């Protein structure tokens, strides 16, 4: 069966510090991968998605970036965090099989920028 991991689970960082969040998927090949952010009371915001190694699509311009160095690894980064980057970050995966695109979510990372 497929599983998705995210780490760290919780992170507290000062403004201006760098960021690296990691997401890995097991039990599937060539998944589509996604990064979402949830700010309080604002629902899910799609940040990036990737359909293959090295292929990244950005949905919202910001000081975050994403990379996919391996088939089942997705990394969210920032060189300098802002207060507004605080939130709950969710990674998800999907596989286009039979023209369906059900997304499955990881446990999330709670980021607090002080």
């Amino acid at each position, binding site marked *: 069966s497929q599983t998705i991991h995210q780490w760290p689970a919780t992170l507290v960082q000062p403004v201006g510090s760098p960021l690296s969040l990691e997401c890995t998927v097991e039990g599937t090949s060539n998944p589509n991968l996604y990064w979402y952010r949830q700010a309080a009371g*604002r629902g899910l915001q799609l940040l990036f998605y990737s*359909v293959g190694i090295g292929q990244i699509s950005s949905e919202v311009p910001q000081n975050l970036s994403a990379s996919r160095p391996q088939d089942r690894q997705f990394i969210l980064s920032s060189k300098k965090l802002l207060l507004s980057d605080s939130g709950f970050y*969710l990674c998800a995966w999907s596989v286009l099989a039979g023209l369906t*695109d059900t997304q499955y979510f990881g446990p999330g990372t709670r980021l607090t920028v002080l």
Partner: protein
Amino acid sequence: AQSVTQPDIHITVSEGASLELRCNYSYGATPYLFWYVQSPGQGLQLLLKYFSGDTLVQGIKGFEAEFKRSQSSFNLRKPSVHWSDAAEYFCAVGAAGGSEKLVFGKGTKLTVNP
């Protein structure tokens, strides 16, 4: 492009009462429709999905949803709510024919009174 509206930001029900959470979508073709549930501090869990066929879909945890094309709705129901159902619920729509992305509603928070 597709869009999703969840008209109710917050709903409170008593334990044992019936529940209906509303979801309206906008999409020019046949949609794929999903309901997810999120407990506090956790990722999203898929409750059920509709792709085609029977418009009444059964999901996990005793939930069901009905697709009504004429009303562009996909409402989630449960005949008897348990205290453990307290969570936030998200409706999502995908494009039939294959799409990497889902569009999520802003969520409905469910409180269950004893």
